[in-house]
């Protein structure tokens, strides 16, 4: 995917995807340049007041979600990001599934802000967004944010569960893993 196509895609779909990150990494695209393209296109379609500067876009792309939604993953769509919406109180966990059935998920949770004793949660599968349900399986990791969303002064209680999305292992990853394991093996093989 080229940069222009990618910019079009995120403007059309509102999705800044991990594919996009790959494009950035693989083609070593200057983020600044990409932001300029986004701003130009936003102006063309009359959405230029969404961001006032490329710094603001960069801030959004870098950490907008974390700052506004205090949430690590995944990256939400542009349309979803609205500066007038923000979490006023928030509890964040990273967790993984230890058991599940058609209705209920049991998970082990670690408090991200206060990682001391852990917690066991049971919650309905309905809490998981439909697009994330395919990830439900034992061992699957997710982030869970719970809090009050201030939407233009209207306070809503929100629970956001997002499963971790990571790219599959690439050949280079596997090679590194094998090399590293082999190095360890040669040093540890002599084991009485």
């Amino acid at each position, binding site marked *: 995917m080229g940069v222009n196509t990618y910019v079009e895609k995120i403007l059309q779909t509102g999705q800044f995807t991990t594919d996009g990150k790959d494009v950035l990494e693989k083609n070593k695209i200057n983020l600044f340049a990409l932001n300029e393209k986004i701003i130009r296109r936003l102006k063309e379609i009359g959405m230029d007041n969404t961001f006032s500067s490329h710094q603001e876009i960069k801030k959004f792309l870098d950490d907008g979600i974390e700052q506004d939604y205090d949430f690590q993953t995944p990256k939400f769509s542009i349309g979803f990001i609205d500066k007038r919406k923000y979490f006023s109180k928030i509890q964040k966990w990273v967790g993984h599934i230890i058991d599940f059935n058609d209705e209920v998920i049991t998970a082990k*949770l670690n*408090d991200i802000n206060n990682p001391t004793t852990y*917690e066991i*949660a049971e919650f309905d599968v309905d809490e998981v967004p439909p697009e994330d349900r395919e990830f439900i399986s034992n*061992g*699957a*990791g997710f982030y869970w944010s719970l809090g009050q969303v201030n939407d233009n002064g209207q306070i809503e209680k929100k629970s956001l569960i997002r499963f971790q999305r990571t790219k599959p292992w690439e050949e280079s990853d596997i090679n590194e893993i094998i090399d590293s394991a082999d190095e*360890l*093996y040669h040093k540890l093989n002599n084991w009485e």
Partner: protein
Amino acid sequence: MIFGLPPQKNIAEITLIGTGGGYGESVVIHLGSNNWIVIDSCIDPVSKESLPLIYLNSLGVNLKEDVKLVICTHWHNDHILGLSQIVEKCESCVFCMARPNDLRKFLQLVELDYRKINIEASNSSTIEFKKCMDIIKQRNPNLRKNAEVDKTLLSLSYSDTITSEVISLSPSDFTMNEFDMEISTLITEYGPSSKKIIAKDPNSKSVVIFLKIGSHRAILGADLEVKETDKEGWIHILDHSQLVEKSTLFKIPHHGSSNGYHKRIWTELLHANPISKLTPWNRKTKLPNAEMIQKYTSHSDSLFMTSPHMNDKPKNRDRKIEKIIKKMNLKIKEVKYARGVIQNRINIEDENDNWHTSLYENSFHVNSQIA
């Protein structure tokens, strides 16, 4: 001293450290003459410090020179966390575990899981194990031992006539062959980098330790379970071990679960009315359950637990968040941490001496609570 005075040279010690909740357990052993062993490790979930290290430090043990052996009974969070802290500090210790036959493949699995650390999908046990491997790879190859059936891991002379031995009774060859196949499956099935690797049955690879300290005997059951076959688990030890002898102290396996119980263990491997001790499991399932407590107390007047079962409660947190959790009808409960230490000591030079028990923090005598 939090845990009493350090033992004298002629006093052997077997101390069980537990955390409640399933945060882990560890056994610290003094074989006499300042020779110490650590079996497994667990951590304080707040400070992340290794509890056996805290214990040894409180007794003023010279970690660098006096800890002779560190044993990792199996690859499970509640037995391994903090182990790398111990291995690092105890520079002259022999590190012992049940070495997989296909070590290369096993290390690939460890590396695979370790790479998930950046997205918090690694298993804590893998991270810990990898840290241990990175430390011991720098050390003398003689400082590694493989635990297997009837293998003497350490032998020390206390005097011309008194010796001490540390012997592993498991895992069986059958178990380790099965593990080789499981490793291949785990690599294939749990390749995706956002999933935690979940081993099928780590307990079956548990290293059970038989201790001979002068004329005194003890069995430390780790998490080994009773299987239907004599090819593995407790039945394999009962039917095939040539070295095990009847003991007077028993660390009950697997938190007193029914799958760690067999009447033959109590009649063939233990003297009548042994000192018995265990750490509880305090999650959705509470171990040991009432039925098992009844069984164990029927075998032993001296059953000790490191902490009682505790009711699960939500964590204290911001009231607004508490209200949201309640309003949304979410069931979120803290797994409580409750440290307890059961310390048993005995005179190595006196073959007629009995184990003396000291209880610290949350540990308690079970029989007196149910009488």
